[in-house]
C-alpha cells in the first residue's frame, strides 16, 4: 500500500500526499471546488486559461514557457472537470523527479511556486486581469463550446445530459453556455476570481518521491498569499427520488453524419439512498462497462450492430448512460436490445463468468489507477468529493465480494429517463 497523508493545511485547503518511489515524475494539482451554476460556469471554465497566460513575474506565455522548459519540461496545464454537480477548476502539473536530473534542481518547489503564482498573482493591469488575455480566452472558450459538435460521440452525450437534466445543476455544461460566455467582462471575471479565491474549498494533491513534510512546506509557501474569507462547504450533488409514473422522453436530431449516435440516460433512484460504491461499479461492468459485459457481448458481438456500445455510471448523480454508434436504420433494434439486456440484469440473469469478469475488471482498473500518477490524482479527488473514507485498495477488495443479487438489486432501480438519437440528414430519394 502507498503511504497516504491527508491534512487541512489552511482554511478549506486539504492536502493529500502520496509518497512513492515508483514514478519518474512527480505530480501536483490544485483544484477549487465550485457549485455548478448557470451564471458562473463559463467564468469558472475560462479562469484557469486566463491565469496561465501570465503571472506578475512571467507576464506572458513565452516567458512562462521558457521557465517551464528550464524546469526540464515541467507541465502545468489548466484542468476543468465536472464531478456530480461540482465544477472543479485549477491546475495539474507533472515534472521530472529530482533523482533523475543532474544537480539539485528543486523542480517540485519551483513547480508549486509557479502554480501558486498562476493562482494568486496573475499578470494584471490597473488591478484587474489583463483585458487582452480575457478577450482571447473568452473567444477560445466560445470556440471550444462550439467545437463540441466536432466529436459526434461527445456531442450526443452532452445533448442527452442537457435534455435529461434540464432544470437541474447537473444539466449545466462544464463550459457554461455561449450566452453566458459572451457576457464575461474583465470586471466581472476579476470580481468573480477574487471571490473564488476567498471562499472556495481547495484540494491539493501530490504524489512522488518527496516526503509529506517537505511537500506541505512548499505548498504552504506557494499559497501563502491566499486571501481566505469564510470558506464555503463542499457543494453537494442533488439526487432526486425517481418518479415512477414519468414516461421516458425520446428526442431525435439530424446532422450531416455517416453514423448514428444513440445515447440513453437512466436514473438509479433508490439505489442511491445509501450508495454501495463497490456494487455500483460491478453493476456497470456487468451491464456495459467491460468487454465481458452484456452490451458488448450482445449489441456488438452477437448482433454486429455497432463498433461500440457501453455504459457508464455517475456515482455522484446516480445516473447511468448507455452510448452506441449505429446505422441510422438500426435505431429501434439497438434500443430494444439495450433495454432487453438491462431487463436480463434486473431479472438476475447474470452468469458466473459475467459476474467474475465484471468484478475482475473493476479490481484491475482500480489497481491499475494506483500505478499511474494521473490515475491516483483522479481517484483521490473523487474520494474526497464523495466523502469516502475507504482507500482504493479496500474498494477493490469490496468489489471482489459483490454478489449477483446486489447487482440485480441496483439494476431494478434503473429507470429509463431520456433517449437521444443523432441521425443523418433526410435526403431526397
Amino acid at each position, binding site marked *: 500500500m502507498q503511504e497516504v497523508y491527508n491534512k487541512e493545511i489552511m482554511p478549506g485547503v486539504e492536502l493529500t500526499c502520496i509518497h512513492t518511489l515508483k514514478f519518474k515524475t512527480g505530480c501536483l494539482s490544485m483544484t477549487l471546488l465550485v457549485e455548478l451554476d448557470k451564471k458562473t460556469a463559463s467564468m469558472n471554465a475560462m479562469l484557469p486559461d486566463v491565469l496561465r497566460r501570465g503571472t506578475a513575474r512571467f507576464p506572458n506565455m513565452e516567458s512562462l514557457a521558457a521557465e*517551464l522548459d528550464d524546469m526540464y*519540461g515541467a507541465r502545468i496545464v489548466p484542468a476543468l472537470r465536472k464531478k456530480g454537480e461540482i465544477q472543479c477548476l485549477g491546475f495539474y502539473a507533472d515534472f521530472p523527479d529530482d533523482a533523475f536530473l543532474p544537480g539539485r534542481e528543486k523542480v517540485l518547489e519551483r513547480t508549486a511556486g509557479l502554480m501558486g503564482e498562476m493562482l494568486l498573482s496573475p499578470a494584471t493591469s490597473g488591478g484587474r486581469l489583463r483585458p487582452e488575455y480575457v478577450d482571447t480566452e473568452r473567444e477560445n472558450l466560445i470556440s471550444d463550446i462550439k467545437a463540441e*459538435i*466536432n466529436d459526434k460521440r461527445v456531442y450526443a452525450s452532452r445533448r442527452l445530459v442537457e435534455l435529461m437534466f434540464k432544470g437541474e445543476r447537473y444539466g449545466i455544461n462544464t463550459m457554461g453556455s455561449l450566452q453566458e460566455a459572451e457576457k464575461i467582462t474583465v470586471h466581472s471575471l476579476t470580481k468573480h476570481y477574487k471571490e473564488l479565491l476567498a471562499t472556495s474549498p481547495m484540494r491539493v494533491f501530490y504524489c512522488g518521491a518527496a516526503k509529506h513534510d517537505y511537500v506541505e512546506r512548499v505548498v504552504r509557501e506557494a499559497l501563502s498569499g491566499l486571501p481566505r474569507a469564510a470558506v464555503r462547504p463542499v457543494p453537494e450533488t442533488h439526487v432526486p427520488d425517481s418518479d415512477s409514473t414519468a414516461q421516458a422522453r425520446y428526442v431525435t436530431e439530424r446532422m450531416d453524419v455517416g453514423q448514428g449516435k444513440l445515447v440513453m440516460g437512466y436514473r438509479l433512484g433508490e439505489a442511491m439512498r445509501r450508495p454501495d460504491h463497490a456494487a455500483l461499479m460491478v453493476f456497470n461492468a456487468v451491464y456495459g462497462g467491460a468487454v465481458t459485459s452484456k452490451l458488448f457481448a450482445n449489441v456488438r458481438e452477437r448482433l454486429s450492430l455497432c463498433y*461500440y456500445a457501453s455504459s457508464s455510471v455517475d456515482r455522484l448523480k446516480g445516473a447511468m448512460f448507455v452510448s452506441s454508434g449505429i446505422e441510422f436504420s438500426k435505431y429501434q433494434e439497438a434500443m430494444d436490445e439495450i433495454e432487453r439486456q438491462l431487463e436480463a440484469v434486473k431479472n438476475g440473469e447474470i452468469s458466473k463468468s459475467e459476474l467474475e469478469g465484471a468484478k475482475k*475488471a473493476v479490481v484491475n482498473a482500480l489497481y491499475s489507477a494506483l500505478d499511474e500518477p494521473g490515475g491516483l490524482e483522479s481517484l483521490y479527488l473523487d474520494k474526497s468529493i464523495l466523502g469516502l473514507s475507504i482507500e482504493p485498495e479496500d474498494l477493490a477488495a469490496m468489489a471482489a465480494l459483490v454478489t449477483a443479487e446486489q447487482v440485480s438489486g441496483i439494476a431494478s432501480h434503473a429507470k429509463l429517463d431520456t433517449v437521444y438519437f443523432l441521425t443523418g440528414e433526410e435526403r431526397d430519394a
Partner: protein
Amino acid sequence: MLKLSEYGRIGECVWHEVLPNGLKLFVVPKPGYKKSMAFFAVNYGGADRRFDTGEGWVDTPAGVAHFLEHKMFDVEGAENAMMTLSGRGASANAFTSTDMTAYHFESTDMFSENLELLLKFVSTPYFTQESVEKERGIIAQEIKMVEDDPDTAVYYGLLRCLYREDPVRDPVAGTVESIQDIDSQVLYMCHRAFYTPSNMVLVVVGDQDPARVRETAVEVLPDYNAPAAERDYGAPEKEAPENLHASSNMEVSAPIFMAGIKTGESRKGQDSLKFQYTASLALSILMGSSSPLYNNLYSQGLINDTFGFDIESTAGVSYLTFGGESRNPEQVCLRVLDEAERLITTGLDPDLFIRRKKAFYGRELRGFNSFDSVCYNIAVAAFDGYDYFKSSEIIESVTSEDVRGFLAKYMRPELLAISSVNEIER
C-alpha cells in the same frame, strides 16, 4: 541468453534477447508496480498491401491488416481471446497503424496465463467465412465512426496532397467498399506472409521474471526462423507535393487545417532517432509553445490551443505536419515559413535551444512512467534498429547546426501542402 542492459542516468534497465526463431524479446523490470503489460507487435500495417508471397507478387485490399487484427482474437474451439482475457480482469486491446499491428494487455493478476494466451492467439490464425462476414459489419461501423471525425479527414486530405500513389494515402482501416473484398483466404495469406517471429517483437513491462517470460515465448511460438515477405511501397515519389491544396466540408464548428511537407524516405537505425529528435527540436523551436512565433499567432487569434505539430516516419516515408483550428490557414503557413527563413538566416536563440533540450529530456523521462509508451517505443525502435533507451543521449548530441540544417532543407514554400476542413454552408 537474456542480457541485461542498464541505463543509470534514467534509472531504467532492460533484459533482452533475439530468440533462435528471430523474435526480439524485451523485459523491462518495474518493481513495486501491481500491473504488468505485455505487448506483442508485428512489423506489418495498413501500408503493407503489395508483397511477394514467395509464389509471386500480390496486391491486397486497403484495410486488410486491420481486418486481420480484429479476427486474430478468434480461437478454434474456444471463446474469443478478448473475452477470455477480459474475463480474467485483464484490459486487452489491439491496434493497427501504417506499419505495425500490436496486441497487448495489462493485468494485475494471472499474468503468465494471459501472456501464454496472447502469444498463442496471435500466432494461430483461425478464420471461418461466417466469422469474417460478421466482423465486416462491426468494422464498417468503426470506419464510419472514423469518417465522421474531422481530424482524420483533414489528415488524410493532407496525405493525399503530399503523395501521388504511396499506400500511406489510404486510411489504415480501408473503406466500407475496400473491405468487401476481404475473405478468409486473404487473411490466411497475410498472416503467413508477416506473422513470423523474426518479424515480431515481444515487450513485457512490470514486476515479472524475465526467464519465465522467455520460457513461455519459446514454448508457445513456432521454432522456425523464416523471413517476412518482401514488400513494395512503389517508387520513391518526387520531393514536391502532388497537390498544394485540398479541402472538404463537414459538420465542424470552426475550420481546421493541417499543413505538411515531405521529409524524404524513412531512416533506419540510430539515424532514425537522431532525425526524429532533430526534426522535433526544429519544429518546437520554430512554432512550439515557448517560441515567439507561437505566442504572436496565439495573441493575434490566428491559432488557439488546438495548434500542434508532428514528425512522422513510417512505412518507407517521412513527413512533418502542423495545424489546428484557424480562420486563416494560409496566413499561419506564411508566418511559419517566414519565421523559418529568419531562423535559417540569423541562427537560433542559444538559450531557447538549451532550454528546449532540457524540456525534451524531461519529456522522455516522463514517457518511462507510461507502460503503453515504453512498449510502443521499444517495438518501434526494434523494427527500426535502434536502442530506445539511448534517447536521452541522442537528444544531447543534436546541435544547433543540425536544427538549422533541417529547417533549411525542408521548410521551403514550394514543398508545402495544405489540407482544410470547413464548415458546411447552409
